[in-house]
């Protein structure tokens, strides 16, 4: 029961808003110490347990280095930004008079969800697509319609640009059979004596995917209505 202290540390870290890296490390050490604790344990034993936990953490940290390789895309994206990629995205959208922020985001949501369902999850992402293209296009559409944006609306549009990437990915990827979470489930059930094919799992992701698309489309429609009301009001006030 004592090992649950690690989870308590995570919750506590949340509440006091400590740096998440610090919370993770504190939770790991706490868990390792709690697992080793017995009424007879003295300082030397606990010290050893702490060192062991740090080594176990270090081994996993080293084994998981591949997770952090994706940051290499930043050098190419940064270079393109330097040459005006975001500005170009705005110019293109400004030439489509019918484009709205919510419309741009909706098209990206559908594309992201469909492509993820086909296993093409690497065709999106915050560093590759949202920052250089999707967010500037969505902002540009609103600027073309209503003029310069107040900060509040600008950041609202940006937040929604990140949200459509996540929601499209999460509720699309499980329809594809060779994605990490599907393989995890197959492996887990296998070790518990239940054999199922990945396809059996992925078909059950379809009803949720359809509902997610419906619910988030409604959200984007509401966003469009909100932007229309608040921005045309400020446009009038400025005029």
């Amino acid at each position, binding site marked *: 029961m004592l090992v649950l202290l690690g989870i308590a540390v995570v919750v506590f870290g949340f509440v006091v808003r400590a740096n998440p890296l610090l919370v993770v490390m504190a939770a790991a050490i706490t868990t390792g110490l709690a697992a080793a604790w017995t009424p007879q344990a003295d300082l030397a034993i606990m010290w050893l347990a702490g060192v062991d936990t740090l080594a176990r953490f270090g081994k996993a940290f080293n084994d998981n280095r591949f997770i952090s390789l994706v940051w290499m895309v930043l050098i190419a994206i*940064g270079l393109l930004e330097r040459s005006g990629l975001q500005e170009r995205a705005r110019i293109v959208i400004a030439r489509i008079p019918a484009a709205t922020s919510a419309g741009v985001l909706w098209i990206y949501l559908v594309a992201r969800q469909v492509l993820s369902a086909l296993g093409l999850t690497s065709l999106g992402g915050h560093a590759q697509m949202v920052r250089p293209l999707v967010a500037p296009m969505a902002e540009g559409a609103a600027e073309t319609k209503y003029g310069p944006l107040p900060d509040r609306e600008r950041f609202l549009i940006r937040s929604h640009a990140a949200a459509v990437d996540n929601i499209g990915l999460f509720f699309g990827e499980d329809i594809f059979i060779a994605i990490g979470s599907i393989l*995890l489930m197959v492996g887990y059930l296998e070790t518990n004596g239940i054999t199922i094919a990945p396809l059996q799992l992925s078909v059950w992701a379809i009803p949720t995917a359809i509902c997610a698309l419906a619910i988030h489309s409604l959200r984007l429609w509401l966003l469009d209505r909100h932007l229309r009301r608040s921005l045309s009001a400020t446009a009038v006030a400025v005029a």
Partner: protein
Amino acid sequence: MIALPHLYLLAGLVFGAFALLSAIDGTNLRRYRTAAFWGLVAASFLFGSLIGDLGNGLVALGLVALAALGLGQGKARTTTTDERRASAERRGNLLFLPALVIPAVALLGTLAAQNTVQGAMFIDPKQATLISLILGVLIALAIIMIWLKPPVLAPLQEGRRLIDAVGWAVILPQMLASLGAVFLAAGVGDQVGKLFADYIPLSTRFAAVAAYCIGMALFTILMGNAFAAFPVMTAAVGLPILIHGFGGDPAAVCAIGMLAGFCGTLMTPMAANFNVVPANLLDLPDRKAALNGVIRAQIPTALPMLGVNIVLMYSLAFHV
């Protein structure tokens, strides 16, 4: 064949360059701290396999200490907004090409490595997507350097500008995976399962479905990852009660349960690469808040979706 060690070498050199450029950036008030942070990341990539488990643990501890003290943000040399606008006008839509090269190479490389003999000789099929993605970055980089002829150091300076914007969140996903390993070794999952089984009344099918789905979401909120929540909650509620007790279809229970966990991912700052990294990349003013703009934009979709998943599992997973 290109495999992960080659990419680690490349990433180590790039992060090493970020560290050097940070150290000589006088505009960053905490330049040595920032340089030390990227330097440790570089050391992990370059020497991680040589320094042993405890050595890697100490590297992680050093990263945590530097992040807790607070990192600075440098001012990398870049272009002005006017220069960018002029460049955008001059270069036209061709500017999109290099940006699209990255995902295109990632996709083609993955397919080639997994389906053709030649591809498998060139790219390690086990990590095909990651390797192809980096290859795409290098090809895009080559195109930009030849076509636009920016200064030689520009890729590193621009990369540093963006990596400084992301900050310590760069290594949070890797740290969470490591925490998962420690939890697993200490048997945290089994204990949570016992807690659920002992204290939560799961006598009706609906209560059990709701406990499983909400438990998946809650545990994901804490761990930042539905993958960590899945084995715990499925061992506690999914297998013994929903599948063996109420005769639920294992495929439907697990698939929808995982998606309930994803609803949790949408609501937590612990899912750094989905919720914190974009807030940093998009310069949101509330990026340090527990519920930043991205999470607030997602909660009104995530909560109804949690309800939807409960209803779907209740009505689809049991053939009565």
